[in-house]
């Protein structure tokens, strides 16, 4: 079933494409950067969260944003491959669909991570304290879990979409709500009941909570709980994404 050569080949292709799309990368980082620099600085003047400035509170949420946006859009990019026929070239090769989805996912996780790490560097330059080695390793783990889950969510969507017209729908009704409900901008403690439920059912909430734990040392939930939720989310997304991709006709 597993074909390491093929997985590497698919991954390598994504790397080459990523390196050649520099303008897109810069574009995707501009939006969170504006939020951090402009909104962050603006609200910094009036808001603090305990010992944290608003900027410090916001930065992990924006790393979550970069992870969310680039991973889901990567997954959905399979529609490009389908529209431009390249997916057929892959599907008729003597390679199992499982290997294809692993290669794709690894490619997506790597490119997402590269963008998020780039943004992380920006955050450090903006005055987010550099965590210790263990926390940094934990941070990477959390980032990878988030990226993996959402790449597969994107792939799952791409299997059910005929063309690109659905993309703005997903942007407005999936990516945006997931982002806004994740507690990237606000603390979770004193939310009204209806919103609490929505926020708590958003997997990114636990991702951003874990990112806060790693970067600025505060969190609503214990880190073990966050990791567990993220792992379950990742496993669930993998199961659904793989199933849909394997059963998809073209």
């Amino acid at each position, binding site marked *: 079933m597993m074909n390491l050569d*093929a997985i590497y080949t698919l991954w390598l292709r994504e790397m080459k*494409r990523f390196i050649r799309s520099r303008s897109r990368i810069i574009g995707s980082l501009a939006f969170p950067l504006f939020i951090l620099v402009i909104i962050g600085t603006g609200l910094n003047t009036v808001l603090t969260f305990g010992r944290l400035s608003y900027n410090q509170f916001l930065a992990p949420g924006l790393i979550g944003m970069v992870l969310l946006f680039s991973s889901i859009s990567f997954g959905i990019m399979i529609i490009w491959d389908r529209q431009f026929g390249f997916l057929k*070239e892959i599907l008729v090769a*003597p390679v199992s669909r499982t290997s294809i989805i692993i290669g794709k996912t690894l490619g997506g996780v790597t490119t997402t991570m590269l963008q998020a790490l780039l943004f992380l560097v920006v955050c450090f330059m903006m005055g987010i304290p550099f965590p210790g080695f263990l926390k940094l390793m934990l941070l990477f783990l959390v980032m990878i879990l988030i990226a993996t889950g959402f790449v597969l969510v994107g792939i799952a969507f791409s299997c059910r979409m005929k063309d690109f017209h659905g993309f703005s729908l997903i942007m407005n009704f999936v990516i945006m709500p997931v982002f806004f409900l994740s507690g990237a901008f606000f603390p979770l403690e004193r939310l009204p009941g209806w919103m609490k439920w929505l926020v708590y059912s958003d997997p990114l909430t636990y991702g951003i909570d874990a990112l806060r734990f790693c970067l600025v040392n505060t969190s609503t939930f214990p880190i073990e709980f966050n990791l567990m939720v993220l792992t379950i989310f990742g496993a669930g997304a993998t199961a659904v994404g793989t199933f849909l991709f394997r059963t998809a006709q*073209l």
Partner: protein
Amino acid sequence: MSTMDTAVIQLCDLKKYFKEVRAVDGVSFAIAQGEIFGLLGPNGAGKTTILNLLCTLLKPTAGTATICHYDIRKNKDEVRKSIGIVFQDPSLDDQLTALENLDFHGRLYHIPKVVRREKIEELLTLVELRDKKHVLVKNFSGGMKRRLEIARGLLHQPQVLFLDEPTLGLDPQTRRHIWEYIKKLNHDTTVTIILTTHYMEEADELCHRIAIIDRGKIAAIDTPAQLKKQIGGEVISLKTDDEFLPEYPWIKSINTHDGHLNLTVEEADQKLSLLMRIAQEKGISIDSVTIHKPTLEDVFLHFTGKTMREEETSWADEVRIRRRSS
């Protein structure tokens, strides 16, 4: 089909239904090694579906087929290793260079590095793209892309090469060029080629045998020469606005199309004067007359009641042509 012990491809009552639509409705034929075999038919006749079934992209509803004795249902991986495909729509990654596209393919098909490199050079030379190998595919013309795809389809040395509308949307000069490659390929190697096409002259020029597909079924299957002979005689084509359907035993077949009346007869030059006299007696005015040997176009019209021309540029093809030339 007893002569087909050496068959590379064998279809047995292959069927594919999409809900109510019988895209492929019980197709059987066999193709021998080294043959160039053409599937000819209007849009929606089922040509591409047959190809997608054979290259394991679709599952048959019923029946099966074998390629190099591997069953397309049971031995997908072996089938996939035995075939190369040039799809109707371009399927290159245009953000990669020509070389990278070929390398990607070679890796997916497990071709060892040394062989891969050698083979890629050889094929790039064959399709005259060697000096363009480091150019991003998005900068290629339609013809160059096609040539690169043909090279890619051959990279893993398949026994069977599928070409789905290989020259759709290409200019006549490039089309001739691609034909030359296909012929050369068939001459130099033992590869069996199956191509689908709209273009009569393409089928006539390239194919050893042709199957005319209409509404998911085979309407006729033979060599181009035999198919034309089946019609026999010559075709008299009359242009008239009047209702005129002569019925005489010496008219072997008759069909009307787009204001033209096509009659298949023996000794057309003699029959023509007879025909003109009949028309005159009935007071029918004839605008123009041509006599020609039956072409594949006539064969096609005979078996399907349609000409290829009217099918030639559907909306989907328009899009394809535009995309390919961009």
